[in-house]
């Protein structure tokens, strides 16, 4: 049988246009690379196109799918190593939304730490920072809502230690 375009749901384009930027941002939060985040977004929207997820639930579904897919990619080794990426991009310093200045090197080391976290802990952290509510994070990861805060806090402590290690000159 000939293989042409994906035989997809008719609302795919509308959902894509409404959520693409957000899905790329979620994946970029995990991967720290726009190119790879776009690859993940493509994969996630392909899956969505074949699914019967109601369009109204698309935002949450896509965020969760992007998080899992990106975390898997982060650990898979297909990703360029943190060092290569830092070297390629140079030591530029980027001002951030929260008036914080975080170097590329720090970003890379934070992602290395993220890759070492247990999957559920990393996913909870990313989902929360991607704007999902505690109840949504709990549902997506099959956790009790009460344990989300503890899990997120624990993950943040680990990543923060990594940041501080780089910040303090030794």
């Amino acid at each position, binding site marked *: *049988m000939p*293989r*042409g*375009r*994906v*035989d997809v749901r008719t609302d795919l*384009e509308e959902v*894509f*246009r409404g959520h*693409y*930027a957000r899905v*790329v*941002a979620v994946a*970029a*939060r*995990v*991967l*720290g*690379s*726009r190119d790879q*985040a*776009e690859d993940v977004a*493509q994969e996630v*929207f*392909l*899956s969505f196109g*074949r*699914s*019967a*997820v109601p369009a109204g639930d698309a935002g949450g579904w896509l965020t*969760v*799918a992007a998080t*899992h*897919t990106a975390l898997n990619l982060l650990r898979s080794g297909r990703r360029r190593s943190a060092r290569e990426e830092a070297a390629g991009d140079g030591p530029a310093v*980027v001002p*951030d*939304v*929260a008036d914080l200045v*975080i170097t590329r090197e*720090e*970003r890379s080391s*934070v992602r290395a730490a*993220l890759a070492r976290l247990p999957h559920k802990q990393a996913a909870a952290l*990313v989902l*929360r*920072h991607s704007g999902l*509510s*505690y109840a949504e994070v709990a549902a997506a*990861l099959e956790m009790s*809502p*009460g*344990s989300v805060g*503890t899990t*997120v*806090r624990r993950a*943040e*402590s680990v*990543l*923060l230690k990594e*940041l501080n290690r780089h910040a303090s000159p030794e």
Partner: protein
Amino acid sequence: MRHPSEGVLRRLVDEPAGVTDADRAHVAGCPTCLRAVDTARTEARLVGAALTTPAPVDTDAGWARLSTTPAAPARRARVDRSRWGAAVRRPAVAALSAVLLVTGAGVAAANDWLPIFQTERVDPVEVTSTELVQLPDLSAYGDLEVTREPGTEQVADAATAQARTGLAVPEVAELPEGVTGEPVHQAAGTVGATFTFSAEKAAQAAAAEGEVLPPAPAGLDGSTLRIEAGPGVAAVWTQPTGVPTLVVARVVAPTVYSSGVPFETVRDYLLSLPGLPDGLADQLRDLSTDAATLPLPVPADLVTSSTADVGGAEATVLTSRDGLLAAVVWVEDGVMTGVAGSVSADELLSVARELR
């Protein structure tokens, strides 16, 4: 009052409304907790900033790329939806397929049917009557279609049964005490069914139970499993009153074929469904590592199980707690043989070991 947990303080940073009034009141008047909330807020901001990656996106380019992606995995497109809509649903087959689905492992290929589960042995899985009621109804997670009916029928004799099925009816060397007369022979053809996952149906079923499903793994939606079992033959001895006293049966054990996502994915997803009791899920997960063990759901409150050797194969011996019924089941070369009746387990084992 003791201090709220670190997790509660963390939630206070994001969702104060999600924290109880009592905890909020405590924190408002507790310098220690206020400091902890401040620290949590600062650290959350730092981590959030470190994770945020400025990624200006070109949505048009993204859409152009997606809409020209070749449809390698568009398996769903070939499914005739109207045919699936008319699928026959039979609880017994649904239960069978549920049991089979959760046991398999192995790989599934893109387009070809691959055998992913071939029964080589059976193993009892202890369930309580309550758990049986709680088992997720598989028909709620997709479309089941019975593709081949077994067409079970009574036949004149063992030779006819063999001619119909290609399976020799096991001959009993010596009937146990209390079993008399000539057996009635039954022959059954192959039973086949396909099961197609539907993320939409699963979500609806879960919503009806007030549960939220974990997101289905990529590719699961629309993927299909094909289940085949049989043919089979049986010899049944009955009392004059019509109550069976001894049944000897032989059937080609079930095989599952997959045309979709890797089977571990299916299994792990099924085992994570809400409603599956933890203990049962663990038993099934333990069994399912070799893709060859058929779990036999055994109501633990009614039946005890043990194992015994029958002609070199490990057989499962089941005995009802009231001692009135027993059964012995084993698998050899993909053929499952069972002996059951209202006789003792020892007598049944003798029958089993001397079958010809």
